[in-house]
């Protein structure tokens, strides 16, 4: 409620301007270190969280970097395999890869040579 609207009997108890200023100054002087501690407390909390979270962030970054490298490596390998001259040759002649060239098996060099000679046209 606005002071001007206080009942008269309460107006009589109001502090005079000097008392008011003295109280205000004392309160604010006493409050200053407490408020400063609160401000520092917020900064400390932010710094503390940053300290706690930085190793986690580093670990997560490493994991993602590893995953990205691995994915890039496998894509490069598959492209290299697809461009292998023997395979391209086979495709050009419209022939399918022999069973000996199964995806999961590693073909023996003799088998590869045999296949190449057999598929060579006249």
């Amino acid at each position: 409620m606005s002071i001007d609207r206080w009942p008269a009997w309460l107006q009589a108890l109001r502090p005079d301007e000097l008392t008011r200023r003295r109280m205000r100054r004392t309160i604010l002087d006493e409050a200053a270190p407490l408020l400063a501690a609160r401000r520092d407390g917020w900064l400390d909390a932010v710094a503390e969280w940053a300290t706690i979270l930085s190793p986690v962030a580093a670990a997560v970054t490493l994991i993602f970097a590893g995953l990205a490298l691995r994915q890039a490596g496998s894509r490069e390998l598959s492209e290299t395999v697809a461009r292998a001259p023997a395979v391209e040759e086979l495709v050009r002649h419209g022939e399918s890869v022999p069973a000996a060239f199964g995806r999961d098996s590693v073909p023996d060099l003799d088998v590869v040579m045999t296949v190449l000679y057999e598929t060579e046209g006249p």
Partner: protein
Amino acid sequence: MRAPRDMRSPESLVEEQALVRAVQEGDDVAFGALVDRYLDSAYVTAMSVLRDAHDAEDAVQSAFIRALERIDQLKPGSPFGPWFYRVLRSTCLNLRRREALRSHEEIPVSAAGGRDPDLDLQRELTRSTVTAALGELPEMQRLAVTLYDLEGYSHQEIAEILGIAVGTSRAHVHHARRALRRLIRAGGDGHADANEPVE
């Protein structure tokens, strides 16, 4: 008739909650604004409990500092006023218990001011009449009528601040106003007649 509650309008309460949040983060300007809002009413409330200018001053200062120390206990969205008056009341009661252990001579507040002796004397006479009248009332009546007339709190809010029933708050305010009117008229010797509470 009750006066409008401009300090308790929804806009004012929203603004006050923003001030409280800022104080919780250590904003000294916001704390100064909260002090400005409640300094006069806190002093009057403390005067009504302690009836001594110096004790009231000490109590108000301590209450603001205690409130600042505990401001994190104020639930988000809760109004600052009723919570602060609870802190103030508890501070006043603690101070009175301490003061009961030692007696001291009162120094009139006007002695420190000394700007207009006639005005100060008149003010001091009125103040002492009102203070003496308040001294005749039981403490709960004093606080109830002060909070009702000072801050425009409802009986529900006063009941929460003082930890009493709503009906008891109503009765306290009613009896206090009647008693104050009678006491100020009898003890005022004229100068406080115009200051009687208006119902």
